[in-house]
């Protein structure tokens, strides 16, 4: 897997998200897994079972932290309590890099607990990049930002989403967690060609890739992480690794979670595309 400064010069392989229904299986069966991704906020607590399980996982596996509420794009400053707890967890897990979303979700210290889409403006890009730099300086690990699925676009936007992503990561000098499922979902919701997105992002900054399933509704697609990865998303994945190299890859499955084996086998399909890419090159 290509190591770069945005993923701490690591080569991790194909991992899955660490989820509660799989705790017992992982601890008792000790399956071979390249790495686990944890939702940081689930472990930014003082004690108890979640941290006990995490410590056992850390004894055997590599863990990368993924956040859902840093809200780099929120106009307000980062929450200090959040940052302190995040840094404590970073020290505990020794995560080689840290990811969170290119979105906003809080106003005046009040939280939506959602990943709300950014207006693609230069003002928002500058503000977001500054906040990413501040967080990175505080937690002292590389940061990669993830493109989110979105269901709305704003009149004030001055560029495409992929142009905005590029603007932010160049200004912040940070990495990208490229979620190819989110690209697919947004492409359907906003009528753009998802390959244009994948072909446009600065490939050298891709630190990690997310794959996942989603749910189709009559007029839009919702990013639900409750299905296997569909073929068009695998095609985007193939193109992404063709451009960025065989990057650390993570399958997200967060609802209607099947057995550990089913989730892991779905993730390991990524190896087929990585092998095909290696042969082709």
């Amino acid at each position: 897997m290509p190591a770069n400064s945005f993923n701490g010069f690591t080569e991790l392989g194909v991992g899955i998200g660490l989820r509660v229904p799989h705790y017992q299986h992982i601890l008792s069966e000790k399956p071979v897994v390249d790495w686990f991704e944890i939702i940081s906020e689930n472990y930014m607590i003082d004690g108890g079972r979640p941290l006990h399980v995490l410590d056992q996982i850390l004894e055997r596996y590599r863990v990368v932290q993924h956040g859902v509420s840093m809200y780099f794009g929120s106009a307000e400053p980062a929450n200090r309590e959040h940052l302190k707890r995040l840094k404590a967890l970073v020290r505990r897990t020794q995560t080689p890099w840290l990811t969170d979303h290119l979105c906003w979700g809080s106003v005046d210290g009040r939280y939506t607990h959602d990943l709300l889409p950014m207006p693609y403006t230069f003002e928002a890009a500058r503000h977001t990049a500054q906040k990413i730099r501040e967080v990175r300086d505080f937690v002292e690990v590389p940061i990669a930002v993830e493109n989110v699925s979105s269901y709305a676009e704003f009149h004030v936007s001055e560029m495409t989403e992929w142009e905005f992503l590029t603007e932010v990561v160049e200004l912040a000098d940070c990495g990208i967690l490229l979620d190819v499922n989110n690209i697919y979902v947004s492409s359907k919701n906003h009528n753009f060609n998802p390959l244009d997105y994948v072909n446009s992002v600065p490939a050298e900054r891709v630190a990690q890739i997310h794959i996942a399933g989603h749910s189709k509704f009559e007029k839009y697609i919702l990013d639900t992480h409750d299905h296997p990865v569909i073929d068009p998303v695998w095609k985007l994945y193939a193109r992404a690794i063709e451009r960025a190299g065989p990057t650390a890859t993570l399958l997200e499955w967060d609802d209607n979670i099947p057995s550990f084996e089913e989730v892991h086998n779905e993730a390991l399909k990524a190896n087929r595309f990585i092998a095909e890419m290696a042969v082709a090159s």
Partner: protein
Amino acid sequence: MNLLELQHRMFEAVLQPLTAGDEMQPRSRDGRSMQEVAAEFIKPNDRLSSFERLEIYNRQYWFRVLGALDEDFPGLRAIIGQRRFEAMCKAYLVDRPSQSFTLRNLGARLESWLLSHPEWTQPRTALALDMVRLEWAEIEAFDGVAEPVLTPHDALASDPDPQFRLQPYLQLLRLHYPVDDLLVAIRQDGSGSSMASNAVSERHRQTRVRKVARQKPQSVFLAVHRVDHSVYFKRLGPEAFKFLNALREGNSLSGAAGRAFQGSSVSESKLLSTLQNWFENWSTLGWFCEPKPAKQN
């Protein structure tokens, strides 16, 4: 419209409660048409209007936060009923939107809010408040900090009248109803569904819950603690409860004992053996922890 203005507008729209049919309100809080409000900052596409696109986020917000409270407070839901519980949660979240980065803390202010809004819990206000306190205590006990355990022997070795520190995760509750039994019954019921339900298939289980719910008021002194990372309830006698609270307030062993047994029916000859039994039991459960190191100047 700059970033701050846009986020304020969208935030206010997203947090506005849904209609009874789980749709976005047709009017904003200031009476404007939401069609107009949404169209001012959100583009429509060939399938969805600006209103409909904003509504996706509005619905996601409420489904997420209501789901979180539903998961955290099944006991309160059973006491006041499913529909009233949902309406109460909406009113609570309008008054007290989340101020934490984690949904874990969503119910942190529910007890204090309910104290000033008894209309949601009448006529079972005391029972409902007890349940909220218990359910929040469970959350705190589940992931509260655990300090290195200290045995009484260790503490007494350095000081004949030591201060015993209690584990931060240990929650001490004085309750007016046996809501610990009620919550266990609701959990055994499996669904935590409303006691107002009359579904035939659920009747035998609902009967058990109703029976507990009908219990008369009763003083319960409860420790909510954890063993091997699982949360348990342990009932205490009034003296033991006073003693533990006195220790938590920083009293020495003798000071706490003095407060615990003041006006107590426990005979003087049994004081020492009572204290020994408590310490033996509570030490086994790991309730005592090392004192905080003195601050260095």
